């Protein structure tokens, strides 16, 4: 069994164990955490074992599944998939840690919740790791089921609506992709006499396909990934899903699940339909820039904290799509690393906002104000996450966004200039959020309510200590700053934000060969050779 298979099967085994233990809440939680930490170690080992200079796909394994269609359970990672697997392995224990004390709807257990999260982790790792197009489709659809139950079973008041919307959008996209998957198989069967779903072989066969065939195949994949990523006209499921999902699940949705879309662009859309993706690139670029601007403006206008994050993500996915379809290796490296950095930055932002909501009990921005006076550490964390989100130099996202913009400018100056506006808008919505929630006088219904009455609000010190001196400990909790568990959850992310901001080399080293391989598969060379010095 390869390391990669272990990475897929371990969370599944963990899910079973946790589900069996769900009667005992404590044991179930620790079991889930233990499994996710072992997974993280395995992912680290995989990163070390992976050889950037080696073959395109590594840690490969392949077992026959349905020989009638030459379908094989093949797995293997390139650099882009590897970093995504690492991100999942990193985020899952943090999400478990965050959700440790989440309120769970009555009749449900933490065990069930954590078990579903582990299933989700296993399927997501497998989606990134598979190298068989059919198996990719299967996992792409299967991935929806645990997420559907996570949102629908554990989410907010409108969770049924959000869960069904999420499922139907993705399912529809997946089915359209299925048409392309079968179409690719049928074309291979006609062209070579032997149909196949093997990614590498399909890439070779379809690379020479006539444009007419490629366009249809491209459109099928594109629709699925554009819904998943999501690009703008197809994005409406994400704000609902992010708003209604529990915070931990929202981290997974915007941090990992959506990356399947952008990953799909790089891994499937471009190599399987190289000519069509260049012909149709303007379509994608328009949607990408639209996404950047629309997402940023929407984020600016949101009154709900969780919906705001969803729109921030939509704007960032626009950047990623822009970089991918600019067809320069710089921009694509930028996009691939942005996928990681966005997971870290937005994941952290969601977690911090989850901690704010856990204190105030409200998701409306209006219900907060001046929180930094009471919880300075939490305020600082929101600032770090926010700065990383707006790609301040010195944070991890900067390098990615910079690469995307500079790489795209070489081929697509107009789109790039328009997208740059998004950076400006990002500063606006991030600082506006920070200002309204953290700065100014302590105000807002949520804070005052949580602290125990209007009297507490006037005095920040009183607020912090939860009015214990006012009424003899009647208001036990008050609004405390971050506790040890929360610090443990956020600390790794803070470290990564800063380390990757100053020293992104380890990640770029892994990503670059894979991106360059993708570029050569498409048959595109960088327009200005002197720039290709990454």
């Amino acid at each position: 069994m390869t390391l990669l298979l272990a990475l897929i099967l371990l969370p599944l085994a963990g899910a079973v164990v946790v589900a069996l233990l769900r009667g005992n809440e404590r044991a179930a939680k620790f079991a889930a955490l233990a499994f996710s930490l072992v997974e993280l170690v395995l992912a680290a080992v995989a990163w070390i074992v992976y050889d950037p200079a080696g073959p395109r796909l590594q840690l490969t394994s392949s077992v026959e599944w349905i020989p009638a269609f030459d379908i094989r359970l093949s797995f293997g990672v390139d650099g882009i998939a590897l970093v995504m697997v690492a991100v999942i392995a990193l985020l899952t224990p943090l999400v478990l840690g965050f959700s440790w004390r989440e309120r769970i709807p009555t009749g449900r257990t933490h065990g069930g919740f954590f078990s579903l999260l582990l299933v989700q982790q296993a399927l997501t790792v497998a989606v990134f790791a598979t190298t068989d197009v059919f198996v990719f489709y299967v996992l792409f659809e299967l991935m929806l089921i645990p997420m559907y139950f996570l949102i629908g079973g554990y989410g907010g008041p409108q969770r049924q609506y959000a869960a069904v919307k999420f499922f139907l959008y993705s399912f529809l996209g997946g089915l359209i992709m299925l048409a392309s998957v079968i179409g690719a198989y049928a074309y291979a069967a006609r062209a070579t006499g032997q149909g196949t779903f093997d990614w590498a072989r399909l890439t070779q066969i379809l690379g020479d396909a006539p444009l007419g065939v490629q366009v249809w195949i491209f459109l099928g994949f594109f629709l699925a990934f554009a819904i998943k990523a999501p690009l703008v006209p197809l994005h409406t499921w994400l704000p609902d899903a992010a708003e209604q999902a529990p915070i931990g699940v929202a981290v997974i949705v915007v941090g990992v699940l959506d990356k399947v879309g952008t990953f799909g662009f790089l891994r499937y859309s471009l190599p399987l339909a190289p000519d069509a993706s260049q012909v149709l690139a303007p379509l994608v670029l328009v949607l990408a820039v639209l996404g950047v601007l629309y997402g940023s403006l929407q984020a600016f206008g949101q009154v709900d904290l969780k919906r705001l994050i969803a729109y921030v993500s939509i704007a960032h996915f626009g950047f990623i799509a822009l970089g991918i379809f600019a067809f320069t290796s710089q921009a694509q490296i930028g996009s691939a690393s942005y996928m990681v950095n966005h997971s870290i930055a937005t994941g952290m932002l969601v977690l911090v906002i989850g901690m704010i909501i856990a204190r105030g009990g409200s998701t409306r921005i209006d219900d907060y104000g001046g929180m930094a006076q009471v919880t300075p550490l939490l305020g600082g964390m929101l600032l770090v996450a926010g700065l990383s989100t707006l790609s301040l130099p010195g944070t991890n996202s900067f390098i990615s966004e910079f690469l995307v913009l500079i790489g795209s400018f070489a081929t697509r100056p107009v789109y790039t200039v328009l997208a740059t506006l998004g950076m400006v808008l990002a500063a606006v919505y991030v600082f506006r959020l920070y200002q309204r929630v953290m700065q100014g006088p302590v105000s807002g219904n949520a804070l005052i309510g949580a602290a125990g009455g209007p009297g507490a609000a006037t005095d920040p010190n009183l607020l912090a200590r939860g009015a214990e001196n006012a009424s003899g400990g009647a208001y036990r909790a008050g609004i405390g700053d971050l506790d040890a568990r929360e610090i443990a959850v956020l600390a790794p992310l803070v470290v990564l934000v800063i380390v990757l901001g100053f020293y992104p080399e380890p990640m770029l080293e892994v990503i670059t060969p894979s991106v360059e391989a993708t570029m050569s598969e498409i048959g595109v060379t960088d327009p200005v050779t002197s720039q290709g010095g990454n």
Partner: protein
Amino acid sequence: MGVTTQTGAVILAQQSIAPPPIHYSAIAPVLIVLGAACLAVLVEAFVPRRLRWSVQVGLSLCTLVAAGAWLVVYARGEPMGLTTLADTLAIDTPTLFLWGTLLVLGLASILLIADRSVEPGGAFVAESSAAPSPSPRAASGGSTGGTATSIAPAPTPAPARATASVAEMRTEVFPLGLFSLGGMMVFCAANDLLTMFIALEALSLPLYVMCGLARRRRLLSQEAAVKYFLLGAFASAFFLYGLALLYGYAGSVELSAIADATAGSLRSDTLLFAGLGLLVVGLLFKGSVGPFHMWTPDVYHGAPTAVTGFMAACTKVAAFGAILRVLHVAFEASSWEWHWVLWTVAVVSMVIGAVLGLTQSDIKRMVAYSSIAHAGFLLIGAITLTDEGLSATLFYLLAYGVTTIAVFGVISLVRTSEGEATHLSAWSGLAKRSPLIAWVFTFLLLALAGIPLTSGFMGKFVVFSAALTAGMAPLVVIALVASAVAAFFYLRVIVLMHFNEPAPDGPTVSVPGAFTTAAITLGVVVTLLLGVLPTPVLDWASVGGFVS
């Protein structure tokens, strides 16, 4: 008089010259089923009433197992396709696969029909002549006058149940089911149109009766039976008229003779296409393909649930078996002239099934519309006219049939004191009350929706890939969109079961008896196996085409 004698003598003379050879080993499964059906009639007549149920159940199950065993032994000898009984029956690989499918589905249906623990005394009427008297009407809750009377027996439910269980169910349903199954087996093996017509009647007439046998909701059940009978009679008439026109066209009712006639002759195309059209209408009606689906929701709703399962699964297999054979054998050469018509029919069926399914509030009607949508998918496979399309459709039929029977098995378990709770609102919060049943049903619904790792997905995949290879890309895209739309109403039930609070006066889930448990388990296991390891069945389904 003299003429009659003369013709009789001619026929006798021909028979004495060339008696048609009969391959008894090949047609043994049909003979076993039909023979057992006759035996079951005798059992009904001579065995004492208290023993009848056990004897009938034993006989039916043994018959199906014996026929299945024979079929397996015969098929393992890798027989060549052959025609027998003077070329009226064609026993080829698709026939054997369809027979196997029918026997498996028949077995599951008989298990559901035989169950007496869910509904005390069985789901079938105690006296088949029982008119809908006021009290059963009250039990159905269908009439306003009945509401008042239904309150009256409520304080004393125990004696009422006791009397219900005393009245043993009538057991005609077993011979009827066997006759119908025998008819279906002949139907999909028939190599000439006349045999096909007789088989059509043999499979339909018992079904009409079975639909009217529900113990509860007598009016609905009888209405369903009458509706099915009347519309079925129309469909038979269409079929027969089409047969007559085709005879006029080809001068023969044999499929191969029609095929020869279509290949480059100067005969009347009007006769051919009018005949084909009428014939296909009759077949599509049986397969509940839209727009010939009008009977489906009412009959599925009114018939006893076990019979609905039998009808939904087995009739569909038989009808599509016949459609496949007719199209492949007789009309392949003329396909470029008619395939647009069936393209349209497939699209209409998928759209009707998917869209009208969204508006249903009764679970049995919802499954009925789902079956109409599935019929559209099946038709796509049937009109590819390629070997991949053939094997894909056969696979889809097995997958769909097994899942459907299990679905109806679960539906029969969710009950209030007044019988099955088929209204969707009654299903809310089911996962809290009986998680196992809710998860089983969720799995089956996901299979109907076509989620990977279920047989429903593999079925769709093989059908769509065959269709795409045959150059039917637009149809495939429409089918995929229809699948996505249809997924909504399956999801709605899943949402109801898992994420809603249970209604305070909601239904209880009966503890299934051994028979129902067996049927549902069979359905779930096969659904999963065909989704995860489809290879053996795909191989069986794809070893050869039709002979004629």
